[in-house]
């Protein structure tokens, strides 16, 4: 599914990511990599396999779109250095030809040295490319730009007859701001309240569904 924001066109992916054709870049928000390892390190028995499956999904879309760059919109790693970094570094080595850029989010607390070691370019708060402003947490709107952000982990709540309701992770676009769904497999969701004119695209069992 394609969408045009501030004269720039993007492809929405049901893998919880966006592809920016003109930049050959994937946009990923709130990956929270190695969150399971952080919990385990602190004695909470989260089952393994989440990071592996997240990286596999990433591999899949990288090769499908022949992406040359991945832009992480913050909260790339969940917390401090832990054993999950081995798995990530193994992935990084295999994909060393791909540029990685990280817009720092509130969870990104690793030492700068580490990002250098992992060959990840850092943008402290935001990065502007053409008319697009990339951030983690949405900031004030500046004329002539469109913000793309993460942080919220948006989902949309639908309701129907017989008091039915369900929640779907979603992309959410207002006039000047776009939110990406969280990428990580070990993340929660927060319901958004769209108004008319907003665009909401939900993700249901691997398919994109235009909600409004």
């Amino acid at each position, binding site marked *: 599914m394609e969408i045009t924001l501030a004269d720039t066109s993007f492809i929405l992916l049901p893998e919880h990511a966006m592809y920016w054709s003109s930049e050959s870049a994937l946009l990923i928000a709130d990956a929270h990599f190695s969150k399971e390892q952080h919990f385990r*390190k602190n004695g909470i028995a989260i089952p*393994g396999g989440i990071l592996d499956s997240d990286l596999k999904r990433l591999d899949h879309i990288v090769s499908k779109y022949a992406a040359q760059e991945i832009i992480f919109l913050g909260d790339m790693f969940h917390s401090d250095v832990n054993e999950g970094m081995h798995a990530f570094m193994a992935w990084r080595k295999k994909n060393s030809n791909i540029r990685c850029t990280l817009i720092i989010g509130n969870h990104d607390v690793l030492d700068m040295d580490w990002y250098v070691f992992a060959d990840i370019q850092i943008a402290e708060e935001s990065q502007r490319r053409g008319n697009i402003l990339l951030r983690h947490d949405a900031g004030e709107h500046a004329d002539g730009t469109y913000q793309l952000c993460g942080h919220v982990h948006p989902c949309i709540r639908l309701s129907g007859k017989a008091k039915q309701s369900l929640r779907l992770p979603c992309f959410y676009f207002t006039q000047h701001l776009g939110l990406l769904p969280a990428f990580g497999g070990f993340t929660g969701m927060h319901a958004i309240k769209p108004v008319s004119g907003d665009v909401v695209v939900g993700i249901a069992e691997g398919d994109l569904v235009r909600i409004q």
Partner: protein
Amino acid sequence: MDTYQRIIGSWYTLKAWEQYDFQRAHAEAYAEGYNGLLNAPTGSGKTYAMWLPVICNQLALHGNTSAGSLRVIWITPLRALAKDIARALQEACDLLGLEWKVALRTGDVPASVKQRQKKQMPECLVITPESLHVLFCDTAHAALFADVECIVVDEWHELLGSKRGVQTELAIAHIRSIAEKEKKNIRIWGISATIGNLVEAMEVLLGPQHAAKKSTIIRAEHKKKIEVHTVLPPSIEVLPWSGHIGLRLLPEIVRIVHQAQTTLIFTNTRAMAEIWYHQILQYDESLAGVLAMHHGSLSGEVRDWVEENLHAGTLKAVICTSSLDLGVDFRPVDAVIQIGSPKGVARFTQRAGRSGHSPGAVSRIWFIPTHALELVEIAAIKEALALDKIEKREPLVLCFDVLMQYLVTLSVGSGFHAAETFAEVTGTHAFHALQKEEWDTLLLLITKGGTAFQAYDDFSRVGKVGERYHIVNKLAARKHRLSIGTIVSDPVVRVAYLKGGTLGTIEEYFIASLKQGDVFWFAGNCLEFLMLKEMTAYVRKTNEQKAITASYMGGRMPLSSYMAERMRMQLERAATHTTEGPEYTLLVPLLDLQRERSVIPRTDELLVELCTDEEGTHIFFYPFEGRVVHEVMASLTAYRLSRTQPMSISVAMNDYGFELLCNQEVNLTVEIVRALFDLRNMENDLFNSLNATEMAMRKFRDISIISGMIFPGYPGELKRSRHLQSSSALLFKVLREYDPSNVLLRQSYDEILYGQMENARMRGALLRIGNSKVIIRYTEKFSPFAFPIVVDSLRDRLTSERLSDRIKNMLAEHH
């Protein structure tokens, strides 16, 4: 023995009390080294009956000097009770000249006092199960318990059937094994009000092997007389629903209060207590200052004040919730009012027993119905009282979450030896059926973080050093100490005035629904919400009267199975006009309307009502089995119905019946209804139905907290520790996807299948329904039976439609 009776006799002479037979019998049993259960109602002098033989034993064997080490552990379920109990125990020691010190050790006791206690233990500790487990976190705790001669568990009927009861069983097993290592004998005694399964209650307390040895049950022969009055309004709401609270009977309540010396007014929810407090004061201003309120959300100081004034007799009435169900006697109380159905015989008796404490006095209770069907419930209770029938408390088994918490507790303390602890744990009733594989799985879970092989891992919680398991993660140890316990409550925020002063706590989700300037009732005050800051809701008093009442969860007590059965019989008698009385005269309009719109089912009939409106097809079933059974039965039948055609169903229930609300048209035949309630394949379909609804996920909430997967926040928390926070719903999702055979996940299903639902009760119900005649009625409007179910907002959902179809339908309905 003679010495015993002489000393005890002198006590009763001193107090000028009559010594009852059961008190004498218990003294004998204790002297002879028995373990057991002391069954006596509140206000019968059970505390002294228990305590005096302990003192005598000491005086007879060791003389009157202080012992210098801990001898008796007195476990009490409520912190609020502990203070009064300790006072009474100390007084008895002083009067009989035993130089013992009785001290409190609960969450309320300052850390400095606790430190001093560890250096010099008092001879008797009055303690909650949680605080006892916290003591096990001490590396040298075995030495603290080495001289313990007796463990008393007060109000055992309250602990039994809860995870705190399981915690108590584990604590007893542990202290007993410490005593056995010292080659010492230890006596275990429980004090319990009457319940339907006293023998089982004793077996659970002592553990199956020990109960078979030297054990006995001592029963107080004398029964306290209960006088039950039903206050009947001139007329009553025909359509019963939660919005009606019986305010019409306000003048009658005030009249009862004025006639009595002191009255306890019980409501079923805290919100209800707030409404009544406000209404009574508005109706009769002369009660200002002598009417108080007592419920679990109010601050400790407020509750202490109320309790002290109840003792002193300076209060005319107190509006309360289950927070005053237990506890020492308030002597001035001579009347009890129960507003709304108490839902069980045991609870009703317990509450009635809070009045009339002088010897030979009668307990007087007034019942205020809030809707018509409650008249049937009170009739059922009266009948049960006449027949001397009372509910059982079913003990819990195989609570892996509690066991996991306990194992970590031991590892934080002196560590544990796997084989020794396995023997200790399987000696309890709760874990007597624990399999070696389950045990090994739990050990793996706390040492390796699971069974699955982890490629990259630094899981750290408990490690094995030699043959012993010790905690290896200091942060985890610290957090564990702070989170010991099995009472899981909704997150709460403090309610305080801006200028200072705390009023109590209130559920966070309620505060979250307020906007600045909103007005609500709390602690008897009309408050304006100002702001929420750092877990405190700041408020100021206001005179604006248009307040919303704080809605507290909890207090939704299900009808007991015994009561459910009585209800069916009472209803049949009402329907066939074979019973009379003022209660039934009032019921006539409701029954007439039910007959007009549908039918009143007999005990050998299952009534099914169908009603279609813009919401979809409402299908009502009325098994009259109580909410607990209905919840699972609704899930089972919804699952089976959804297999007949793709549809989405939402489910609601109360004590009388349940509703399946379907978004598709449904053609029900008697055959289909029979198939829905078929006993065959029950377990399998049930399991699948639980997978499809959110019931298991809700159960998992408590389990995840008790087992330590979720850390509740604690004061002075580092910012980064927020990185360890997650919701139980998210954990549930992740476990289901990545470790579907997880033992804690399994527990959340088992708690519904075997614990909550009482498998036998479910089978019995299905069997009964299988033999019933099915009556299907299409109704134009909701019947009086259906109405209260429809308005219930707590719903579970289930679907057999494809997700894409559901989304398509939902989007189409909105456009």
